[in-house]
């Protein structure tokens, strides 16, 4: 009984972790990409440099989502609360 409650709570916790971890980085990546497009429109000759920096910073923001994913995975597959 306790185990099934913990399992259900773990699934919900995993869903919430991934869901909310997507929100912040989504906003941040949108901002960054928008600013990059603006920069390219203003200065088309700097496109290569802007693209490189953009990809690198997007990957950094992506890693915040990934932390949520890691928490969700550990709750689903290696749950420390199940006996």
């Amino acid at each position, binding site marked *: 009984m306790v185990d099934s409650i913990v399992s259900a709570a773990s699934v919900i916790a995993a869903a919430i972790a991934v869901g909310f971890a997507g929100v912040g980085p989504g906003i941040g990546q949108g901002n960054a990409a928008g600013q990059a497009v603006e920069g390219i429109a203003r200065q088309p000759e700097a496109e290569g440099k802007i693209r490189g920096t953009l990809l690198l910073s997007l990957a950094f923001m992506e890693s915040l989502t990934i932390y949520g*994913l890691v928490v969700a995975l550990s709750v689903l597959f290696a749950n420390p609360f199940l006996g």
Partner: protein
Amino acid sequence: MHSFLLSKIEVGSHLYVNFSDSLHLHGETIFVSTLVVTTICLFLILGTRDLNKVPGNSQNVLEVIYDLVKSIAVTQMGPSYYSQFLPFVATIFLFVLGSNVAGALIPWKLIEIPSGELAAPTNDINTTACLAILTSIAYFFAGLKIKGLGFFKRYIKPAIFFLPLNIVEDFSKPLSLNFRLFGNVVADELTVAVICSLVPILIPLPVMMLGLFASCLQALIFATLAAAYIGEVIE
């Protein structure tokens, strides 16, 4: 151990090679990472055996890699110190790149093993933890070597009450490096596996391409961050 099975997608199951009751290895991780290291070593040795003024094919590839790694090291650590830590950064970069690409390109699913599955070595959190701890050791070593005991002044900068934050940072740096690499690799493989279980033909291909791209980017990011952490303590 309790685990959820969703159409044969497993996380955290390994092929254990037991030496004794308490000592065991993850067989598939050791196998694939040995393969990756051997391939990289052979490629580097054979590619640099006869260097010419006009580079051939493999020498061209190696020069591009060297330029990339060197530019990472120079931008993060400055032109006067980079050469001491270039081998470390290059090793990290090549190993992570090699293992990510090996996991993404080689069709490991064709080879059946008793438990777990062959995949990228970075798919196992122990590999990435090892890389992250090596990075920690490297920046402590770099700081102590170049600054001597003045290295510890960095803990009370910019003011004395930053001390706990700076100490916590020493633990959070390897942790975030570790989770970033592990999570990205596992996320790529999970996405491909889930889409393959829904539509097995043609649809997963663009996702696989994205995964390959992200794998290369993760190698670049891991090397950049390792170089940045070293650069931070020696500046």
